[in-house]
C-alpha cells in the first residue's frame, strides 16, 4: 500500500514538474508536491551530450548518482523539451561494459601489437605511450604523429589537445571527426563571408514564413528544432510553407506541404535553377547586391578527394578511383558546364580546388543560363514513379516560395549537403540564392547549416582542432595569425608549423601508407565512422604503428587500438559546448567518473608532463614545408629564444603550455563550483582549476577579434543558458552582419559582411582569371556560380542501386553511448537496410530477409526493411551507421568534397542479394 502511495506521489510530482517545465500553470498544492518529492535531489543545469542543437537539460543527482533528467524550461533552444536521445542522457554513463582501467595489448608481460588486451596502471600506460610516441617523433618528426579529434570535445578538451599538438609537438596533424559532418559548411562560410559560423539563429524559425529543408531529415535528426518548425507551421497553417528536398521520403516529409525527391547530386542543378529564375524574373535585390556583394567562381576540374593513385585500391575500386585524375563528361554535365558530352577532362586543380576569382553579374547570368526548368526537372527527378510534370510543378513552387517578395525564407540543411562530393559548392549555392534575394542575416531570412555534433562549432571550428586552423578562425598558413597565437601562447617566434597537417581521411590513408605511425583517438570512433573502413582497420592492425584510444566504452576504434585509456563522460567533468547557433553553454561536473576513468583534459595534461622543451623545440624536419621565413622542409630550433623568454630546455610541456603562472592563479576549489567536484583538478592536485583556466586563456583569442566570448564564470551562472557570440559588453549577438543586432557592423551600412578571410581577389570570366591584379572586396559577401557535376560513382549494371547512410532518432552516430542505454538499444537493436518493396520483389527478397549489401569496397549483412519511417524510391537504399554489427562504412566510398575534405557518405552504388 505504501509502495502504491509512493508511486502515485512520484507520478504526481513528475507530472507537476513537467507541467511547470512546459508552462502549464500549477496550483500551490501541486507545486508543493514537486518540492516534497525532489527534496533530496540536487538539480543543476547542463547540456545534452548528443547533437549540435544544444538543448539545455536539467540533471538531478542524489547520493553521487544521477536520478533524473528533464528538459530545461529556461533553455531558449528547447524550452523544456527533450527528444528521445536527450531523454536518456542520464543513463549513458551506466552501461555494463564501461571501461574503468587502462588496457594494453600484452604478451609475456610486455606490450605486443599482436597481444591480447590486459589491464595496466595509468603509469604503465603512459610509459608505453611515451616510448612509442618518441620512437615515431624522433624518426619522422611532427608529421609522423596524429590526433583524431572531435566535434564532441568540450572546449577545454579541444583547446588542450590543439595546444599540445600545435604549440608543443609543432604538429598540425590533429583533425576532428567534425571534418566528416560540417567542413563543407565551413568552406562556404569562409569563402562567402570571410568568417565561419552562421549569421542567423534558431529564432529564425519563429520569424519565417517558409522552411525549406535540403538533405536534412530534421524530424529524426534535429527533432527539437523540428518541433519548433511544427509549432510555427500550426500557428499559421495556411501561410507558412514547409518544403522538404530529399533523396528518400522520410518523416520530415510527413508535415511538409511539398516533398521533392531528387536524384543524388542534382541539388547543385536545382539551386542554379532557382538562381536562374531569380534573374529571369528580375527578382534580384539589386540594391542589396550592389552594396554588399560581389560575384565569383572557380575551377570545375577539382577531382573528388580520392587518392590520386590506385596503388592501395582494391581491384573493384579502380574504375571509380581513376576519375580522380580524369573524367568523361556525361550529357547533363556538358550542358551544365557549357562543354561537349564525351569530353575528357583532366582534373588539373585537385591541389588548389579552393582558388576562385571575381566575375561580373553578366558572367554569373551566363553561368546559370543553362539551368532551365525543363533541363533541371529532367535531370533531378528522383522518383521513377512520379511524373515529370509533377516534379516540374514542385520545382516551380520551390522557386516561387523563395522569390515571393514579402515571403521570408529559411533554408536548413545538414549532411545531405555537407557530406557531398561538391559539398562546399552546394553550401555556397544556398548563400547564392539568399544573397541574390537579400534574404540573409535578418530575422526569418537566412541560409543555415544545422550542425551535427554538440561542439563541432564551439570546439572543432572555433577552438581550431582542424589541421589548418588556430583559435578564433585563424589558420596556420597565415604568418600574422601564427604571430598572434605565439604571442598569446607565449611561444618563441616560428614555433608554430606553417604547413597544413593531415585531415582525418588523410590520417587514415597515412596509417595505410606508413606516413603516420602514432595516432591518438580522442572523443570519437573514427574506425567505425569513416568510409571505406576495410582499408583503415587493416592498416591499424597490420602496419607498424601505435594507436591509442581514449574511450568510455569498447568501440571499434578501441578494438583496433594498441592502448585503451578509460575516459570520463559528460556529467563526470566540467565542460562547455558551442552549438550551431553560436551559443556557448557550460555545465559543472555532476558525479565522479567510475573506477580509474579519467577526463580527457587530465589525460592530455598528464601526457604533456613527459616531454621536455629540448625534445620538441629543436629543429624539426617537415617534408614539403615551403613558407616565407622558414628554411625549406624544416622548422627552426627555437630553444635559444625560449631561453631568452625565461624557459629552460628542461621545462616540460606541462609547465610551459598548461600549468603556467597565469593558469595556476585560477585556483581550485572555486566558489563557482557550488559544492560540485572537479576531478581533473583533484587528480592533478596542484591547486588550480584546469577547465576554467584553459577556457579563459582561449577566450583571449576571441576578444576584439569578431568572436568575443564571455568569461567562464558567466557561462556557469544559474541565470544564463548560454550566450551567442560575439558577446559584447555582456550582450549576445542575435543576427550577425546586420546593423540592428551586431556591434561589429559599420554604422550606417545596414549590412556589413566584415569577415576578413579571402577578401582580395583577381578578376576573370567563367573560364578563368583574366586579370591577376587583386581587388579588395572588404565588407562584402561573395555570390558564387558553381555548376552541376555528376557523382563519380553511380548505379550501373553490376552495382545497380544507390546507397546512402545516416542516422535514426534513437541512436547517436556509432552508437557508443545510445547502444548502452538498454531502452534505446532494444528500440532499434540493429541497423536495417530500407528498400522499395518492388525493388525487393524484383530481387526475390522479402521484408525481414537477411541480405548482403555489396559495393566495390566490401560487403555487409543486414535485415531488409520495406516499410516504416524511411520510404526510398525505386532504385534507392538507406541504412544507418550506428551499428558496428552492420558495418555500413565498409561499403561507403571515401571520396570527399575536394575543397572541404568532408566525406560523401550519401552516394555509393551497391547490389543487394539474399544472404
Amino acid at each position, binding site marked *: 500500500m505504501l509502495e502504491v502511495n509512493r*508511486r502515485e506521489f*512520484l*507520478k*504526481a510530482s*513528475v*507530472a*507537476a*514538474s*513537467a*507541467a511547470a*517545465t*512546459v*508552462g*502549464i500553470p*500549477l496550483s500551490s498544492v501541486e507545486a508543493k508536491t514537486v518540492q516534497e518529492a525532489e527534496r533530496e535531489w540536487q538539480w543543476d543545469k547542463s547540456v545534452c551530450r548528443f547533437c549540435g542543437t544544444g538543448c539545455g537539460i536539467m540533471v*538531478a543527482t*542524489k547520493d*553521487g*548518482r544521477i*536520478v*533524473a*533528467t*528533464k*528538459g530545461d524550461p529556461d533553455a531558449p533552444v528547447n524550452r*523544456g*523539451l*527533450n*527528444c*528521445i536521445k536527450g*531523454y*536518456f542522457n542520464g*543513463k549513458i554513463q*551506466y*552501461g*555494463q*561494459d564501461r*571501461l*574503468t*582501467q587502462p*588496457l594494453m595489448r600484452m604478451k609475456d608481460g610486455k606490450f605486443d601489437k599482436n597481444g*591480447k*588486451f*590486459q*589491464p595496466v*596502471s595509468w603509469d604503465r600506460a603512459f610509459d608505453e605511450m611515451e616510448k612509442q610516441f618518441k620512437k615515431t617523433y624522433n624518426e619522422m618528426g611532427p608529421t609522423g604523429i596524429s590526433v583524431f579529434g572531435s566535434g564532441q570535445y568540450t572546449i577545454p578538451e579541444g583547446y588542450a589537445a590543439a595546444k599540445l599538438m600545435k604549440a608543443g609537438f609543432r604538429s598540425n596533424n590533429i583533425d576532428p571527426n567534425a571534418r566528416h559532418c560540417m567542413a563543407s559548411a565551413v568552406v562556404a562560410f569562409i569563402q562567402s563571408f570571410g568568417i565561419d559560423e552562421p549569421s542567423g539563429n534558431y529564432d529564425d524559425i519563429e520569424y519565417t514564413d517558409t522552411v525549406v529543408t535540403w538533405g536534412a531529415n530534421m524530424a529524426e535528426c534535429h*527533432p527539437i528544432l523540428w*518541433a519548433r518548425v511544427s*509549432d510555427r507551421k*500550426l500557428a499559421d497553417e495556411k501561410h507558412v510553407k514547409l518544403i522538404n528536398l530529399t533523396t528518400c521520403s522520410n518523416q520530415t516529409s510527413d508535415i511538409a506541404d511539398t516533398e521533392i525527391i531528387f536524384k543524388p547530386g542534382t541539388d547543385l542543378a536545382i539551386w542554379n535553377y532557382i538562381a536562374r529564375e531569380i534573374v529571369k524574373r528580375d527578382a534580384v535585390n539589386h540594391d542589396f547586391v550592389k552594396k554588399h556583394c560581389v560575384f565569383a567562381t572557380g575551377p570545375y576540374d577539382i577531382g573528388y578527394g580520392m587518392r590520386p593513385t590506385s596503388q592501395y585500391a582494391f581491384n573493384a575500386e579502380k574504375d571509380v578511383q581513376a576519375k580522380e585524375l580524369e573524367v568523361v563528361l556525361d550529357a547533363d554535365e556538358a550542358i551544365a558546364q557549357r562543354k561537349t558530352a564525351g569530353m575528357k577532362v583532366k582534373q588539373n586543380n585537385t591541389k588548389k580546388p579552393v582558388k576562385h576569382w571575381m566575375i561580373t553579374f553578366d558572367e554569373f547570368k551566363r553561368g546559370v543560363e543553362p539551368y532551365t526548368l525543363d533541363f533541371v526537372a529532367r535531370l533531378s527527378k528522383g522518383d521513377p514513379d512520379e511524373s515529370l510534370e509533377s516534379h516540374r510543378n514542385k520545382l516551380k513552387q520551390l522557386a516561387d516560395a523563395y522569390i515571393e517578395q514579402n515571403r521570408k525564407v529559411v533554408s536548413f540543411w545538414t549532411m545531405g549537403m555537407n557530406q557531398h562530393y561538391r559539398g562546399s559548392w552546394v553550401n555556397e549555392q544556398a548563400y547564392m540564392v539568399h544573397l541574390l534575394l537579400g534574404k540573409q542575416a535578418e530575422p526569418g531570412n537566412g541560409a543555415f547549416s544545422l550542425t551535427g555534433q554538440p561542439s563541432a562549432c564551439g570546439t572543432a571550428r572555433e577552438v581550431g582542432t582542424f589541421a589548418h586552423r588556430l583559435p578564433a578562425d585563424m589558420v596556420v598558413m597565415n604568418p600574422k595569425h601564427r604571430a598572434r597565437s605565439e604571442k598569446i601562447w607565449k611561444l618563441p617566434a616560428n614555433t608554430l608549423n606553417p604547413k597544413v597537417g593531415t585531415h582525418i581521411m588523410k590520417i587514415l590513408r597515412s596509417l595505410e601508407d606508413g606516413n603516420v605511425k602514432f595516432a591518438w583517438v580522442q572523443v570519437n570512433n573514427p574506425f567505425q565512422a569513416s568510409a571505406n573502413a576495410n582499408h583503415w582497420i587493416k592498416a591499424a592492425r597490420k602496419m607498424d604503428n601505435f594507436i591509442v584510444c581514449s574511450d568510455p566504452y*569498447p568501440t571499434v576504434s578501441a*578494438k583496433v587500438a594498441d592502448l*585503451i585509456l578509460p575516459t570520463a563522460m559528460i556529467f563526470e567533468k566540467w565542460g562547455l559546448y558551442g552549438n550551431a547557433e553560436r551559443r556557448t553553454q557550460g555545465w559543472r561536473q555532476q558525479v*565522479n567518473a*567510475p*573506477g*580509474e576513468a579519467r577526463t580527457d583534459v587530465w589525460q592530455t595534461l598528464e601526457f604533456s608532463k613527459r616531454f621536455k622543451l629540448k625534445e620538441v623545440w629543436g629543429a624539426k624536419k617537415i617534408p614539403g614545408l615551403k613558407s616565407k621565413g622558414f628554411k625549406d622542409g624544416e622548422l627552426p630550433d627555437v630553444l635559444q629564444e625560449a631561453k631568452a623568454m625565461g624557459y629552460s630546455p628542461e621545462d616540460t610541456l606541462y609547465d610551459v603550455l598548461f600549468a603556467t603562472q597565469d593558469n595556476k592563479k585560477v585556483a581550485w576549489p572555486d566558489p563557482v563550483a557550488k559544492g560540485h567536484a572537479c576531478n581533473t583538478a583533484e587528480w592533478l592536485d596542484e591547486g588550480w582549476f584546469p577547465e576554467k583556466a584553459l577556457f579563459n586563456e582561449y577566450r583571449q583569442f576571441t576578444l576584439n577579434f569578431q568572436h568575443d566570448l564571455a568569461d567562464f564564470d558567466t557561462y556557469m551562472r544559474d541565470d544564463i543558458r548560454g550566450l551567442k557570440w560575439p558577446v559584447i559588453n555582456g550582450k549576445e549577438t542575435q543576427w550577425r552582419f546586420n546593423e540592428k543586432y551586431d556591434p561589429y557592423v559599420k554604422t550606417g551600412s545596414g549590412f556589413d559582411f566584415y569577415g576578413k578571410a579571402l577578401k582580395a581577389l583577381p578578376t576573370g570570366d567563367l573560364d578563368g582569371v583574366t586579370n591577376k591584379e587583386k581587388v579588395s572586396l572588404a565588407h562584402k559577401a561573395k555570390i558564387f556560380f558553381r555548376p552541376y557535376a555528376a557523382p563519380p560513382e553511380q548505379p550501373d549494371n553490376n552495382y545497380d542501386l544507390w546507397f546512402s547512410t545516416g542516422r535514426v532518432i534513437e541512436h547517436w552516430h556509432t552508437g557508443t553511448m545510445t547502444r548502452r542505454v*538498454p*531502452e534505446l538499444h*532494444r*528500440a532499434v537493436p540493429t541497423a536495417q537496410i530500407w528498400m522499395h518493396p518492388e525493388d525487393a520483389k524484383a530481387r526475390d527478397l522479402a521484408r525481414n530477409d537477411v541480405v548482403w549489401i555489396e559495393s566495390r569496397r566490401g560487403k555487409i549483412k543486414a535485415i531488409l526493411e520495406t516499410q516504416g519511417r524511411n520510404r526510398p524510391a525505386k532504385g534507392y537504399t538507406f541504412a544507418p551507421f550506428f551499428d558496428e554489427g552492420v558495418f555500413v562504412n565498409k561499403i561507403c566510398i571515401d571520396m570527399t568534397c575536394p575543397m572541404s575534405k568532408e566525406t560523401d557518405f550519401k552516394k555509393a552504388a551497391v547490389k543487394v542479394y539474399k544472404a
Partner: protein
Amino acid sequence: MNISAILVTTSLDNTESMINILNDLSGLEVFHHDNTTGKIIVIQEANSIQDEVNGLKRIKKIPGIILAEMVQHYFGEDTHLYSAKDIENMDDQCGISSASSCIPEYLNQ
C-alpha cells in the same frame, strides 16, 4: 520503476477528446492540460522503459496529435541500472587483482 512525463500537443478544439483517448490507453494517465495552448501532460509508468518508448510511439500515431515528446524522466529506483555499476565495489570488479572482469570480451575476440 520508471516514470516518464510526456508533453502532448493537439489542436485546441481537440484537447478534451484527446484527453479521453489518452486516458483510455493502458499505462497512461493525463495529469495536466492547458485549454489555451492544447498542451497535455501524460504520465507513463512501466517496468521496462522499452514499454515507455513504445508507449510514446503509440501516442505519436494517434490522429490529431501534433507533437508528443518526453519531457521528464525519473529512474532513481532503476535497480538494474545501478547494479551494473556499483561504484563502491568498483575495485572488486575491475582492480588489477581481478583483472579479467573488466575486459569486455568483445575487445579480445
